[in-house]
């Protein structure tokens, strides 16, 4: 069904492109190879921006909000007459957060001649797809991929993100445990995934370097398992005072619940994969007192208020995870196209690095490596069924 729809859409663009060809004035900046004849829409009257991420599968709740955010931003722009005189159009592809699917999603976006990509959502999928984008010279901006390698390794010069990388979260978590909670014995648990394990390894590295914390347990668990009582018993056996968990909310909810049921009095500190309202909904009163790091509170930012209101008006509920980051990314991309006056890769990436843009997470631009200057993390705690920023 989806394929059919895409095909129909593609056919429509071909026709639209043909009928409007004679009116075409400005020659597009990039060279048009012969292959492009098959998709005249790419050089026609629209600027295509890709949106990639998990839109189905068990991590869909992380990916779908960015599609909505992108749609709102694009609608605004198109209502105001478009970008560089052209309408902006989204090409949405689903990578289910799986690296192998992400590569084919990326190929699809490249063949659709998108000028930039909002995505991907998961770090693993993003890494897998980056090579394809780099070869095609397409800048990619993720609202949520926090693996430090993406920026710090220098392997992905076309990568940008509107979220702070994982090691900044690990740093903050370790500092918080040492200085604010003043605990000593720490158990570091992760879900063996790119994101969770990455964070856990940074935390371990920082804790060892600081020599203030005593790591009594460091282990990976299997995500999606039916029961975590064995690892919870092991945490109990280790005598840990605090559990630092790297991973996502479904497993965190199970562990937190079991910790409470087994009557263990330990603090639980986690990351922005857990700072999701679904976690509180699922873990219920067991979630109380859990700490999680997440992007700083932007509830006072007028752009954030506006973006959230749009979502509430359209869907009748609060937006999901990474919605504002995606909104920010979309604003940053479109702003850079506007400022650069072109969709050319070099001009576009240069504009991203030099032009400040007002966004729902504050005024940002990007550093040489692609990290956003102005996006930081805070520590939150579940209090009376909601995440509250603590300091």
């Amino acid at each position, binding site marked *: 069904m989806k394929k059919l729809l895409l095909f129909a859409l593609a056919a429509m663009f071909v026709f639209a492109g043909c009928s409007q060809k004679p009116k075409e004035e400005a020659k597009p900046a990039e060279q048009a190879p012969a292959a492009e004849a098959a998709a005249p829409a790419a050089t026609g009257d629209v600027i295509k921006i890709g949106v990639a991420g998990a839109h*189905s*599968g*068990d991590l*869909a*709740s992380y990916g*779908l909000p960015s599609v909505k955010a992108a749609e709102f931003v694009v609608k605004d722009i198109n209502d105001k007459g478009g970008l560089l005189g052209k309408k902006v159009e989204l090409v949405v592809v689903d990578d289910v957060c799986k690296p192998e699917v992400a590569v084919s999603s990326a190929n699809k976006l490249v063949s659709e001649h998108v000028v930039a990509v909002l995505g991907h959502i998961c770090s693993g999928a993003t890494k897998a797809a980056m090579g394809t984008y780099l070869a095609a010279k397409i800048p990619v901006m993720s609202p949520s991929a926090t693996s430090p390698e993406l920026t710090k390794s220098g392997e992905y010069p076309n990568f940008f993100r509107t979220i702070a990388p994982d090691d900044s979260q690990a740093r903050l978590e370790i500092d918080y445990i040492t200085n604010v909670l003043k605990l000593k014995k720490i158990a570091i648990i992760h879900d*063996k995934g790119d994101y969770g394990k990455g964070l856990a390894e940074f935390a371990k590295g920082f804790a060892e370097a600081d020599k203030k914390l005593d790591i009594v347990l460091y*282990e*990976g*668990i*299997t995500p*999606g*398992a*039916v*029961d975590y*009582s*064995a*690892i919870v*018993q*092991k945490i109990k*056996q280790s005598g840990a005072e605090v559990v630092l968990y790297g991973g996502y*909310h*479904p497993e965190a*909810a*199970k562990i937190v*619940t079991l910790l409470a*049921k*087994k*009557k263990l009095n330990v603090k639980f500190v986690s990351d922005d994969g857990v700072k999701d309202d*679904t976690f509180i*909904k*699922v*873990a*219920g009163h067991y979630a109380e007192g859990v700490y999680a790091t997440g992007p700083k509170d932007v509830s006072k930012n007028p752009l954030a208020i506006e973006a959230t209101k749009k979502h509430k008006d359209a869907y009748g509920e609060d937006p999901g995870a990474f919605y504002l980051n995606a909104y920010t990314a979309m604003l940053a991309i479109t702003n850079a196209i506007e400022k650069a006056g072109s969709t050319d890769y070099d001009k576009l990436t240069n504009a991203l690095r030099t032009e400040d843009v007002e966004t729902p997470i504050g005024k940002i631009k990007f550093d040489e490596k692609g990290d956003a200057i102005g996006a930081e993390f805070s520590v939150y705690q579940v209090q009376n069924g909601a995440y509250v920023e603590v300091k």
Partner: protein
Amino acid sequence: MDYFLELFLGGLTRGSIYALIALGYTMVYGIVQLINFAHGEIYMIGAFTALIVASVLTIFGLNSAAILVIATAAAIVYSSAYGYTVEKIAYKPLRNAPRLSPLISAIGMSIFLQNYVLLAQTSDFLPFPRLIPEFAFMEPVSHIFSSAELVIVVTTMVVMVLLTVFIKFTNIGKAMRATAQDKTMALLIGIDVDRVISVTFIIGSSLAALGGVLIANHIGQINFYIGFIAGIKAFTAAVLGGIGSIPGAVLGALILGWTESFATGYVSSDYEDVFAFALLVLILIFRPAGLLGKSETKKV
């Protein structure tokens, strides 16, 4: 010693969870030699049905024991209907096709049902209410073995015994065994094979639904994907114990549960699956038909 006991009980619960799902797998395989990959999804649908019914009943203010019974009954009926329909749509037309065809059809059904629930319900994790009450007599040991865990373990054992008795002594049970041995011959002596297979799927699906309710209650959360992961483990357990054998499924599931629990406890949870599957490989090398499975003699 306490630590050992805790791990032992944890493994027992985990094994019982696998067993509840594995029983359905092994039963269907025993009768039609089909690995019903959609079984995990039937389990997931059972959990969803129970959640929906329980949410509605909570509004009416029933007490939790009544809700548990009604929600479970609803889940069993609804899941059975699904199991019955899936068999009629996806497997029956392929009964005389090569064995690979129904297998692919089963995988297709599994993906279809997952996405159907994703679209019809939600992609989010949903909290599942704790319907099983905390028994007062369990209070002193509740930190090592909770009431919900006790219910799971007891249910699994009761279901295993009932199922064995059912297949050994009832008429339909005998018909099932006959069908399992030789479908054509069973047909010749007047057994309604279609009906027997339908009943098998209905019973298998009921067990899955029962498992769905109990396990969702234990884990406290469900989403459309839970069936897949639990299904893979249960399938492993069924193979370990000897697919087609009912006590085998329970034995295999318990061994798998203990292996995982002790591997986590004494080695590292990083290697939980490594130990579980290494054990599977070892057992299959020495007993290719599984622990309690009967090896088939191939007719040439």
